[in-house]
């Protein structure tokens, strides 16, 4: 089951971090329609996050049409995100891992990698990202 982890130092509000993690899991195919999300109490027990924060994130995910909460029965994934072929996702992930390893070997640190990736993504996708926000 999805394990939610919080970056307590991040300026991103915790409820948005939860929303983003579920979205990421949907995009990566780790969560698929029909999967049950951990209950609010399960998230509190596993990661010590405020239950109101988890509830708020689940409400938000419900509004986005990504999950459905059934009274007393938990929350279930109802949609997928992204339309990439899962095999293609795996292939490019492996290539990316190779790229990261080579860059680290060449002495680049994590921040360098993030800046590089962000710069390339911005150049190649500026038209799309301005639409998608």
């Amino acid at each position: 089951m999805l394990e939610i982890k919080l970056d307590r130092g991040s300026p991103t509000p915790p409820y948005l971090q939860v929303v983003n993690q579920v979205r990421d899991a949907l995009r990566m195919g780790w969560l698929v329609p029909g999967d049950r999300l951990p209950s609010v109490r399960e998230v509190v027990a596993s990661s010590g996050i405020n239950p109101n924060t988890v509830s708020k994130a689940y409400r938000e995910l419900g509004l986005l049409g990504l999950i459905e909460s059934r009274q007393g029965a938990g929350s279930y994934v109802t949609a997928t995100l992204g339309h990439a072929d899962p095999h293609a996702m795996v292939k490019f992930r492996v290539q990316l891992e190779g790229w990261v390893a080579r860059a680290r070997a060449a002495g680049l640190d994590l921040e360098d990698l993030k800046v590089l990736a962000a710069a390339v993504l911005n150049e190649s996708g500026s038209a799309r990202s301005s639409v998608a926000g």
Partner: protein
Amino acid sequence: MNGGPAVMETSSLCAEDLGKRYRKTWALRECTFDVPSGRVAALVGPNGAGKTTLLDLMAGVLEPDTGSGRVGPAPTGAATPSARVAYLAQDRPLYSTFTAADMLDFGRRFNRRWDQARAFDWLDTFDVPLRRRCDRLSGGQRTQVALALALGASPDLLLLDEPLANLDPIVRVEVARRLLDLVAEQGTTIVLSTHVVAELPGRVDYLVVLVEGRLVLAGDIDDLLAAHAYLEGPRSNDAPGPWVTVRASHSERRSRFLVEHSGDGPPPLTHPTWQATPVGLEDLIMDYLQAANDRPADLAGVDHRG
């Protein structure tokens, strides 16, 4: 993006123009805020800011000199019409000759509603010896006995004065987790005072900041974060834009302003040399505390307790 449909929230704790004076010195003044039911609120401020006084007033240990502090109605379906309040006081008052087991027995006799299993379970979880006299327990163990007493009373509202002080790091995490589970399971409202701002993100959802007996910030944390931003740019005396500056800090060439604006997301900046970045909870609190510090003493509200 903001929280979806408005959820009707009833007030659990409401202070209106609340004030308390010790002789001529105001420990707390003109304090107005409202903590909704089922929330976890952090009460933050430096020593002598009035945190304990505020908790004492809310717990009914002290009588206010001005205004009122009201504890809201019990959750619907509760047996008693008014909310049940438990208070973990800073000095963890226990009878020194009583054992931990005696204290729980005492709790059972003097509370109309009492959850013996919960209280014993708490002591068991944290390995507190039941048969040892309270004056022979460590500071951390005394805290656990006092917490077990507070939780055994099955409160609707739990007031905790520095609940994690004198607990070791691993126990702090476990106590916080169990208190949050209580909120999830029973809808308990928690108001806790603390110095350790780094432990707050992700755990509390409501914030009350006191400085020198005055309230400087209060509200839902997501709302507060969404309404503040840092503006960074070339050195200047004032922040660009119409927003309220909370705190300014300057280096040789650059200036940074924490501003409060209304609405979601970073404020629209027209000047290209300025950049807006979101603010995290820790920075938000520290900047409000620092801002009060930056101000000359004669403007800051003056007469405060020690």
